[in-house]
């Protein structure tokens, strides 16, 4: 049986399984409130929470973009293990303080924190909208990247029987269906299964690659021969970029709306802490593995362009499947694992987008069932728009999309991380800082075409200016700035 036929069968079974979980989740729902739909009734236990955090954090970018980046940049891409771990480290600064406030206040979206912390100030609502706009822009970008990656993989695993265009449309429709039916329960449960599939697939692929290369030492020796610069000690600018990437990814990922919503959705604080403890090891198992996959491609494929480099993983899988007919089934498993990683991120992003737009942007009540319905409709509209965009804009690298998203998201950090530790911070200066930081990130990064200055991301430079404005403008302390880093008792 050919890889394409096996791929179609595997894809069909996988999608049928997702639909089944969606229906199971629909039957398990308690009511139509946003808390039940978007946070699974705040009942996620350690196992499911850990797996959904994992599946949400590791996306199409991690599975397709990172091997491509390792292929392009060589061994210095080991930095990705560091920056993915930084996400779990940086959360020490936010989750233990945010969680009790969120539970007491019945928070559903990130904007509920802004409303709680700054809601009594004149600029509070404007800040909530500005944060929501940045988050929506970043998430829409992220969703677009996932859809693009899904289309690529579907076409690859079925050897073109399912085209890129059909793959994007079909998979987007399946995600929309199970998410609309089952909300966070469906997303978390499918994430759990998808995580296991992803881990299994990656382990199988890296085992084959290292065996085929003759071990790690032989792989390094091959790289030293075929592209010695990939193994050399990085230049100062690359080291600066390494440090900057750790700061950018760690801080920006902390304000991922879908991650913040999982902080709200945990069954208890202890459940949350245990899940983060387990998450500490996932960069070693996942990011290091995909880096090795990208490095293994260096001696195998010479001179892939930037866009082609995103296809390193599919190219390797194709080679693997062709090496022996028995490997074809294993290659399909890896393909489906990668697809699972992408879909699990896309569904979480979509769920967050619906709630953010309905509650934080449009200001609907976070306890009303009508808000859930509105969120579902918005999610459907966004999914259709992004799927359409994914069909026409294909020549953008996945890593480029991640960086753009992070540069925007990181500007929300003062409104969360600094505001939760600094009672004197006020809404007006935080809003001004956010605008200044975003202006620098977008103006210098996109306008002037300088995404990095001496290796440092412009988004990070924007954040420094952003924090300085927020901090400096909140001095001296005012009555309004003294309140609300405590738990709400009046909601």
């Amino acid at each position, binding site marked *: 049986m050919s890889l394409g036929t096996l791929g179609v069968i595997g894809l069909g079974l996988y999608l049928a399984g997702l639909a089944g979980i969606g229906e199971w989740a629909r039957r398990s729902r308690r009511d139509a409130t946003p808390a039940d739909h978007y946070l699974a009734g705040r009942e996620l236990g350690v196992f499911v929470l850990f797996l959904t955090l994992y599946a949400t954090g590791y996306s199409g970018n991690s599975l397709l973009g990172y091997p491509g980046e390792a292929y392009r940049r060589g061994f210095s891409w080991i*930095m990705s*293990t560091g920056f993915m771990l930084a996400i*779990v480290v940086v959360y020490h600064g936010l989750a233990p303080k945010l969680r009790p406030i969120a539970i007491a206040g019945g928070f559903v979206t990130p904007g509920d924190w802004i409303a709680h912390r700054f809601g009594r100030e004149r600029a509070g609502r404007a800040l909530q909208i500005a944060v929501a706009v940045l988050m929506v822009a970043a998430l829409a970008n992220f969703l677009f990247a996932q859809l693009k990656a899904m289309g690529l993989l579907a076409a690859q695993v079925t050897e073109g029987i399912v085209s890129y265009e059909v793959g994007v449309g079909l998979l987007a429709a399946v995600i929309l269906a199970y998410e609309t039916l089952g909300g966070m329960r469906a997303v978390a449960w499918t994430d759990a299964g998808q995580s296991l599939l992803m881990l299994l697939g990656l382990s199988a692929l890296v085992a084959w690659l290292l065996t085929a290369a003759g071990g790690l030492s032989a792989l390094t020796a091959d790289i*030293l021969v075929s592209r010695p610069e990939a193994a050399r000690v990085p230049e*100062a600018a690359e080291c600066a970029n390494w440090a900057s990437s750790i700061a950018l990814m760690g801080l920006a990922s902390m304000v991922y709306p879908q991650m913040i919503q999982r902080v709200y959705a945990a069954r208890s604080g202890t459940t949350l802490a245990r899940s983060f403890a387990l998450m*500490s090891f996932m960069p*070693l198992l996942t990011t290091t593995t995909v880096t090795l996959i990208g490095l293994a491609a260096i001696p195998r494929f010479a001179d892939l362009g930037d866009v082609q480099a995103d296809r390193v993983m599919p190219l390797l899988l194709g080679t693997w499947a062709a090496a022996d007919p028995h490997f074809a089934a294993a290659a399909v498993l890896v393909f489906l694992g990668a697809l699972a990683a992408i879909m699990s991120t896309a569904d979480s992003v979509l769920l967050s987008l619906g709630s953010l737009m309905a509650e934080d942007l449009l200001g609907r009540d976070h306890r009303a069932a009508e808000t859930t319905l509105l969120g579902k409709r918005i999610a459907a509209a966004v999914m259709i728009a992004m799927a359409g965009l994914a069909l026409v804009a294909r020549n953008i690298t996945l890593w480029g999309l991640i960086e753009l998203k992070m540069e925007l998201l990181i500007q929300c950090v003062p409104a969360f991380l600094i505001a939760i530790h600094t009672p004197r911070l006020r809404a007006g200066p935080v809003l001004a800082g956010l605008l200044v930081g975003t202006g620098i990130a977008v103006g210098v990064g996109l306008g002037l075409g300088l995404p990095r200055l001496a290796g440092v991301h412009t988004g990070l430079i924007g954040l420094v200016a952003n924090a300085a404005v927020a901090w400096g403008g909140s001095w001296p302390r005012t009555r309004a700035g003294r309140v609300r880093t*405590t738990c709400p008792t009046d909601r």
Partner: protein
Amino acid sequence: MRGMRGSGHRGVARRRLRRWLLAAIGVLYAASIPWYRESGAAPQVWLGLPGWVTVALGCYVAAAILNAIAWWLAEVSDGGRDEGR
């Protein structure tokens, strides 16, 4: 039971240990970046990888272990009484 975890001398010791663990993670991060090595130099191979990569990976393994312990020690309350002060 959970409410009692963070109280008293034991709770203070846990918080202090957690702060030390986080500081150690910061040091490991600084050591993981090969800024202190001669840039462009041909690598020595250690444990199958260029030496500077082995050091970076070793730092991340150690940081992951310390971070897991720090989360294990973390007191994440659901009570919500003046937690932000």
